[in-house]
C-alpha cells in the first residue's frame, strides 16, 4: 500500500516532469521555426506546387491604417478564388517593414515609404524590393464643439491649434471664417496620437509643409508642443467624443464610421474643401510619380484638392522562391487595382488610385521574378 504523502510526492514530481518536457519541446519548436530564415528564402507555408488549383497561402504584415481595406480585399478575393488564402496582421508599418526585411512574411505593408537604410538591409539574393502604392486616404480634423456644424479652418487657424498658439475657440483667426457659427470662449484641447503611426506621418508631413511656425518636423511620432496624447485611432476618437471643446486628427474612414464632425480645411490655393475621398484623390492627379513610387504630396497645389492626404504601400520581394506564389501575388494586385477591387476602397472611405498611377504599378509588377530552381 502506498500511503498518501508518498502519492502526493509522486503527483508533484510527475507534474514537474511534464513541465520540464513541455519547456523542452517549446525550446525545440522555436529553433525549428527560426531555421527557414537562415536558409535564405521567404517563409513558405506551402511547398512549391504548380499553380493549377493547388492551395496557396500567403501571409503579410504591416500598416494598420489600410488594414480594414486589405482584410476586405483578401476575403473577397478568397471568395472568388477559394484556393488562394491571404492572411494579414496589422502590426503597424514599422513592424511590417521589419518582418519584410527579415523574410518572415510574403509581403509587407507600410504607410511611410522604405528609407535608404531599410533598403540597405534588404536581402540581396531576392533582387530589388518592389514598393507599390495600393490606396491612400485623407486625414481629417475631427472636433467636438456643440452647435458648431461645418467648422471652417483656415491654414493659419489649424496651424495655430496644432502648435498651441491659438488657445480658445473664439480666437479672431477662427472666427473670421465662421461668421454664422457661435464660437464659445472655451479652451481648445488638441488631441494627437501618442503611439507611432502612419496617420501621424501623413499629418505632420502636411503640417511641416503648410505651417511656417512648425518646429517639430515630421515622422511617425514627433515631439508635440501641446495637447493630449491618445493611443490608436480608436483612442483619439474616444477622446474627441469625451472632451467638449476638443479637436484631433484621424483617418477619414475612422471619422466617417464614428460619425465625428469634421472640419473643412483651406488648401494651398486658398479654397475651403470638405474632406471626401474624391477631393483627396484630386491631390494625386497629374503629379509626377517617382521611380520607387514613394509619392508624397505634402501640400497639394490643385484648386479643389483636400490638403492632408497620404498613400500607403505594399512591399513585395523582387524574387519569389516559387512560381505559384509569385503569380498569385501579381494576380491579386491586378484584381485589387481593377474597378472591381477599387469599389471596396471607395465604400470604406479609402481613395481609389488615379488611372495613371495604376498603369505604372501594373507595369512594375512584371519585374517580379521567380528564383531559379536550386
Amino acid at each position: 500500500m502506498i500511503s498518501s504523502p508518498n502519492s502526493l510526492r509522486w503527483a508533484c514530481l510527475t507534474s514537474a516532469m511534464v513541465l520540464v518536457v513541455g519547456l523542452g519541446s517549446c525550446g525545440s519548436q522555436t529553433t525549428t521555426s527560426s531555421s527557414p530564415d537562415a536558409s535564405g528564402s521567404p517563409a513558405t507555408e506551402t511547398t512549391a506546387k504548380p499553380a493549377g488549383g493547388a492551395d496557396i497561402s500567403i501571409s503579410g504584415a504591416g500598416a494598420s491604417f489600410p488594414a480594414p481595406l486589405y482584410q476586405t480585399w483578401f476575403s473577397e478575393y478568397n471568395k472568388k478564388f477559394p484556393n488562394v488564402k491571404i492572411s494579414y496582421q496589422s502590426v503597424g508599418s514599422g513592424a511590417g517593414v521589419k518582418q519584410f526585411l527579415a523574410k518572415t512574411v510574403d509581403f509587407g505593408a507600410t504607410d511611410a515609404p522604405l528609407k535608404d537604410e531599410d533598403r540597405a538591409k534588404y536581402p540581396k539574393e531576392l533582387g530589388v524590393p518592389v514598393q507599390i502604392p495600393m490606396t491612400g486616404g485623407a486625414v481629417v480634423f475631427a472636433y467636438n464643439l456643440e452647435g458648431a456644424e461645418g467648422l471652417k479652418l483656415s491654414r493659419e487657424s489649424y496651424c495655430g491649434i496644432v502648435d498651441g498658439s491659438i488657445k480658445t475657440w473664439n480666437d479672431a483667426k477662427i472666427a473670421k471664417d465662421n461668421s454664422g457659427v457661435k464660437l464659445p470662449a472655451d479652451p481648445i484641447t488638441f488631441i494627437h496620437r501618442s503611439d507611432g503611426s502612419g496617420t501621424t506621418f501623413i499629418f505632420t508631413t502636411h503640417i511641416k509643409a503648410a505651417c511656417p511656425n512648425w518646429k517639430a518636423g515630421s515622422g511617425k511620432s514627433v515631439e508635440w508642443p501641446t495637447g493630449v496624447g491618445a493611443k490608436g485611432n480608436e483612442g483619439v476618437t474616444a477622446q474627441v467624443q469625451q472632451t467638449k471643446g476638443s479637436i484631433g486628427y484621424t483617418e477619414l474612414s475612422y471619422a466617417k464610421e464614428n460619425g465625428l464632425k469634421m472640419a473643412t480645411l483651406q488648401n494651398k490655393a486658398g479654397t475651403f474643401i470638405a474632406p471626401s475621398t474624391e477631393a483627396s484623390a484630386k491631390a494625386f492627379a497629374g503629379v509626377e510619380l517617382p521611380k520607387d513610387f514613394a509619392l508624397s504630396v505634402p501640400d497639394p497645389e490643385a484648386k479643389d484638392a483636400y490638403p492632408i492626404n497620404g498613400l500607403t504601400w505594399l512591399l513585395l520581394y523582387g524574387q519569389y522562391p516559387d512560381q505559384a506564389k509569385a503569380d498569385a501575388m501579381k494576380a491579386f494586385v491586378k484584381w485589387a487595382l481593377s474597378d472591381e477591387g477599387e469599389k471596396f476602397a471607395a465604400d470604406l472611405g479609402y481613395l481609389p488610385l488615379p488611372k495613371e498611377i495604376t498603369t505604372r504599378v501594373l507595369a512594375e509588377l512584371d519585374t517580379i521574378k521567380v528564383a531559379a530552381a536550386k
Partner: protein
Amino acid sequence: MVPSTNDSQSMNWHRSEASRWLDKGFIGVTGFFGIAVALVLLAIALRVSIDAFPAIQKFGLGFITTSRWNPVENLYGAWPQVYGTIVTSFIALLIAVPIGVGVALFLSEDFLSPRIQRPIVFLVELLAAIPSVVFGLWGIFVLIPLLTPIGKWFHETLGWIPLFNTVPVGPGIYVAGLVLSIMILPIIAAISRDALVAVPLELRQAAYGLGATRWETIFQVILPAAFSGIVGGVMLALGRAMGETMAVTMVIGNANVASPSILAQGSTVSSLLANQFAEASGLQISSLMYAALILFGLTLIVNILAELLVRSVRLKL
C-alpha cells in the same frame, strides 16, 4: 506512514529506496525551477542592457534628467516618464494603502459573521482578476467624466498651489493615480489580510489578558506582528503600479512633460514603451530599452528600501 502488517517489512524497504530517489528527484527539479526563474530575470536584464547600450553611450546619465523625446531628431531623455512613474505610483499607494490595510483589518477581525465575511473577501480578491484594459475603458468613460468637474473645482479654488495649477481637460496624472489605486487595492487587501490572520492567537489573547482594549491590541500588537507581511503586499502592489501599462496609457494623457500639477497630463515609463515600441527603430528602440532598464532599477531600489524598512521595524520590536 502507517505500517499495517509485519510482512510488509521488505516492501517498506523497497519503498523507502524509491522514496529516497523521489526525494532527490524532487529537490533537483524544484531547485532547477528556482534557479531558472532567477536566470530568466538575469537574462532579461542582460538583453535589455545590451539593447540599451547605444543609448547609454550616447546620452549617459543625462538621459534621466532631460525631458526631450524627439524621434525626428533622435534626441531622447526620460525625465517626464521617470517622474510620472514615481508620482502616479505614489498617488496610488497614498490612496490604496490606508484603504487596503483598513479593509484587511475589517475582514480579519470578527466584526462580521463568517457567512457575510467570506463573500466580501472573495469579492475583494475578484477585483484583482479584472483585465487592465477594462480598467482603462472604465477610466475613460466613467471616471474621467466624473473627475473632471471635481478637478475643475480644485483648480478654481486651490489653483495657487502648484499641485493644481493646470486646467483639467480629462485625462491626467491624477486619473492614472486613482485607476492604479483601485487596481492595486485587492493585492494590498488580500495579502495584508493573510498576514493579519496568520498572527498567532496567543499574542492577541495575551494582549487582552494584560488588559489592552481591542484598539490597543490592533495597533500595538497585531499590526506590528503582521508588518513584514503587509509591507510585502504593498511592495507587490507597487510593482504592479509601476509596471502597469494599458490602463495608464489610456487615462494619463501621454504628454511629454513633467508638470508639478497632478491635474496635468503626463506619461510613465511603461506607457511610453506601450506607445512607441511598435513603430520604433534604431536609437529610439535602444532609448526605450534604456527607459525599461531605469524602470528595472527603480523597482530594485524600492524593494531594497522596503527590505530595510522591514528590518528596522523588526529590530525595534
